[in-house]
């Protein structure tokens, strides 16, 4: 399962970033806190497959589908 598939108002734990990601983007995502073991909470999903909004640690981020699809989740909870 990837972050893109997480329903609104659900939490999950990040498993890994996909190898397919551009290394610069992957590095930025890690700095933003998208690291293995980190909990994420999905605040909202936008209509028409628009960017999703997640809370991670002390920040709220919005990611578009192409990125969110590259973030693998361990399990939803």
């Amino acid at each position, binding site marked *: 399962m990837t972050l893109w598939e997480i329903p609104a108002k659900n939490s999950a734990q990040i498993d890994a970033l996909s190898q397919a990601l551009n290394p610069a983007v992957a590095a930025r995502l890690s700095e933003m806190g998208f690291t293995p073991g980190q909990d994420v909470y999905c605040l*909202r999903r936008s209509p*028409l*497959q628009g960017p999703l909004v997640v809370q991670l640690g*002390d*920040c709220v981020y919005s990611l578009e589908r192409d990125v969110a699809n590259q973030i693998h989740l361990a399990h939803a909870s």
Partner: protein
Amino acid sequence: MKRIILVGKPNCGKSLLFNQLTGLRQKVANFPGVTVELKSGQFKEFELVDFPGTYSLHTLSKDEEIAVVKLKEAMQQENTAVVVCVLDATRMERSLVFGLQVQALAKAHDKTVVFVLNMIDEVRRYGFDIDTTQLADELGSPVFALSAKTLIGLSEFQKALPEIARQPEQYRNEQSAIAPENALIVARELSKNHGVNADVVLKKQNRIDSFMLNNVFGGVAFLFIMFFLFQSIFTWATPLMDAVEFAIGELAVWVTGFTGEGMTTDFLSDAIFGGIGSFLVFVPQIMVLTLIIGVLEDSGYLARAALICHKPLSYFGLSGRSFIPYLSGHACAIPAIMAARTIESPRKRLFTMMTIPLMSCSARLPVYALLIAVLIPADATLMGIFNLQGVAFFGLYLFGIVTALLVSFFLHKFTHQHDEKSDMPFILELPTYRLPHWKPLMYRVVNSGLAFIKRAGPVIFWVSVVIWVLGYFPQHGGLENSYLGKIGHFIEPIFEPLGLDWRYGVAILMSFLAREVFVGALGTLFGIEGADENISGLAENIQADGLALGAGIGLLLFYVVALQCVATVAVLRAETGKARIAAGLVVAYGLLAYIIALLAANLIN
């Protein structure tokens, strides 16, 4: 002079802190080489330099890269005494990831780092506090907690910073820097021990977002805010624009009073005051626009607007961040093209910049007003409800926007991505909603006016002089017999298929100064003095002269599409870094405009 440099992530309050430390006397710092905007100001005996906010030292976008390269250069310079790293105390973990990168970089260059935990007022309001002594110990650098807004802790910092900058060596510890791969873990540890509970801090923000991003209410709020922005550019800016016009007119009368009759006076009143004046009237509008966008940005709404627009715009190869530049383009393309700098992906930024000139800027407004008055009777309605003139105005705006989206769509579909770095994904941090502070806003507003004058002024000056010379000599027989008139007659065959005679050709040529010059030029050619104030008189003359409906509509659409503004071309060249793109756009939009006008002239009758 010894220098202190200020770094921080966007939205940490760095601009406000900079303003509080330096007052309003600041200038754009002059660093040799690349043009990244560094503000500098005087703080005690030091020069304080504000670096553009970057999210990380590992860069994604071109702009970030330039900023980081500059930062590294500054770190190497002898006279850089201290690096002040501003952190958002409400977001310790993320701030510290950046802070530790800065600290490591500074250590590598033997520079001293001072951390500022800004926003401490909010931390206290949530009922937390931060033990700066303990944190300074663990970080191995001085730490100050303060609020740039409520000024808590600011005077202590103002006392301590000069001490540190005078003897920076004493505030550097010998601890080795934290390795980059450990920075994430260390930041997490530190923020767990010292930071505040994220859920408490984010609660208010998330509650507001549940409205502002709501599918229904959020959309309505968005439209409302954008309508307000649009209104402000046109209605509130108008009195200011009139005032500038009036002042320039008075100045012209006063100055030419000394020079008497003759060529000097004609040159001064037409080329200098007339030409430059027709360009200076846009300054207030640009300042009003900057003010509103500044308020939206500092309050945190701009990030939400980008989020809302991202999906629809992505169908056309654009980003959510393209929206504001597009909207600004309805005032003037020049600040709009500069505003496209915030777009994360170089490719999307390029498409945005290339299509901004299609937005109906306010210089086109008088042209639209004149031609619509010629073509459509004032009392005509559409289906008995809508005023047809109004509908036509709206249609022209829409035509520009739709053309821009289509052009961007085709660029997106039929050009190749050169490398991976040329298209970055949309990743956005949603900042906390905050009340903006007037000081940094003031600076931005004034600066936007100055930047516009500096960017466009020289070009406008030369175009104005050239057009004046061509229209003034040889000195007999008025505009018709001038060089410009001759050129008009010479190129008449080009405009003939569009149903336009040489007079329109001359007026179009003169529009290269600024499009609204078209009205005054036609006025001269149709024998109406002061046509700018007397549009209906000129419209009657043109009607009597006979302008075919198809030719008129074609001319209107020509003005929507053609890239006639020399100042915009100059800015496009500077911002894309490629003369080829700017020149290509002039040709491409010129051809497209011509074809559309040709079709209109021949199909509509």
